[in-house]
């Protein structure tokens, strides 16, 4: 399905790199490396130059931690979105937030997508997306509350649960007035899932793709990769790229990533193996 993210449209065979830009002092991977506005802005410039189609700007880390007020979250992201909008008109701007009030402010500042990592915790977020014609990412959290870790969660069938919840959320967004071509579903690896769940979701991602909703995967350096290889944050790139390759094979369309260049190369290679993308320039044996 063609993806329309406010002003930008992408053909139904296009894959998109969504680069993570944290305006947080404490996110797990970068440990606050882009907490300062200038550092975050420099990251936007870098990932845009690396070819990312989307930046995903977040003001609150996903893991449990100090309560961040609406006012504080807005202070971290709204003006920053406005700055990126002005300097990078071609870039799709996503904001990682579950709060409708924050979503409203960032859309007014020029954001194109609301990436709701917490699966519709704030029921009015879809109304905000609809009001601005913005896209929305519908994630699966297994019913866990915002900013909590999974603890002893069991599913009869994790993939069935993921599909049921994300497509229900997508239908809710559609009913609220978000255009069908602006809705993306995300199984949300690690969220409400143990490592076995995340591995199974990866293994069976084709079932999610088969729903017809464009699928976003957020795999980058996550714990399920770390636990699979027994490696700490900082040593998970190879495992991340392996999971990326499988997701691409199954047809995931959007990749939320720390490493844009490496992920783009993996996705392009797998997309070509799958016969969905011609090689960049093939002459070997054909001259």
């Amino acid at each position, binding site marked *: 399905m063609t993806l329309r993210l406010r002003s930008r449209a992408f053909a139904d065979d296009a894959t998109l790199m969504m680069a993570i830009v944290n305006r947080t002092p404490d996110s797990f991977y970068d440990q606050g490396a882009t907490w300062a506005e200038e550092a975050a802005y420099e990251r936007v410039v870098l990932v845009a130059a690396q070819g990312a189609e989307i930046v995903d700007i977040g003001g609150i880390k996903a893991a449990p931690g100090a309560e961040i007020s609406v006012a504080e979250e807005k202070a971290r992201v709204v003006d920053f979105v406005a700055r990126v909008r002005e300097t990078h008109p071609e870039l799709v701007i996503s904001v990682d937030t579950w709060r409708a009030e924050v979503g409203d402010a960032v859309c007014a500042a020029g954001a194109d997508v609301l990436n709701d990592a917490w699966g519709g915790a704030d029921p009015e977020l879809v109304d905000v997306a609809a009001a601005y014609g913005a896209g929305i990412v519908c994630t699966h959290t297994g019913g866990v509350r915002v900013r909590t870790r999974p603890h002893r969660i069991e599913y009869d069938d994790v993939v069935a649960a993921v599909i049921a919840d994300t497509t229900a959320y997508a239908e809710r967004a559609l009913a609220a007035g978000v255009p069908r071509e602006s809705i993306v579903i995300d199984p949300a690896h690690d969220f409400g899932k143990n490592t076995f769940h995340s591995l199974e979701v990866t293994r069976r991602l084709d079932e999610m793709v088969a729903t017809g909703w464009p699928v976003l995967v957020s795999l980058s350096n996550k714990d399920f990769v770390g636990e699979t290889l027994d490696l700490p944050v900082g040593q998970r790139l190879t495992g991340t790229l392996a999971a990326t390759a499988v997701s691409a094979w199954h047809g995931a369309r959007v990749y939320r990533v720390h490493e844009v260049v490496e992920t783009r190369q993996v996705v392009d290679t797998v997309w070509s193996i799958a016969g969905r993308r*011609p090689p960049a*320039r093939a*002459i070997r044996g*054909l001259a």
Partner: protein
Amino acid sequence: MTGRGVSGPRVVIAPPVPALLGRYASLQDPVGPLRAACAGAVGWLDEPVRVLADDGQGHAVAESLLGRPADAAGGNLLVMANGSACRTEKAPGHLDPRAAGFDARLGALLAAGDLAGLAALDRGLGRDLLAAGLESLAGLQALGLQVASATIDYDDDPFGVQYWVVRWQCES
């Protein structure tokens, strides 16, 4: 030679390069200038057009350039041929010191429209050098064509393989 005002058969010689086939298309065309030259020359041929090629791949490339099946008969010809594939160390057939001389000779014959010379070319050497379409070129003499003018639209060896795109206007 001058072909002005001549209205006889038209002949195009183009290389049977598989990269020209749609099924081998890349995001960036590795043979863009060659493809453009072939398209221009083939567009110059009036229908019907008969294809001369030494093998099925040559026919496939020809029909891809024509954008339709070749005609069974017809005075205008699309001849699929190229020079050696041994012009550099990176060439498909590696560097062969005989390649440059062979290609110079073949290029001169094409530019001159010298059908007798093409028929007399050393085809065994050509096979060694991975040249293509030499049987088809040799067969032109028997067709009784008189080349009035020759135009070279393309003459290059971008991958160590010598390609030409040549248009011949023949006398009627």
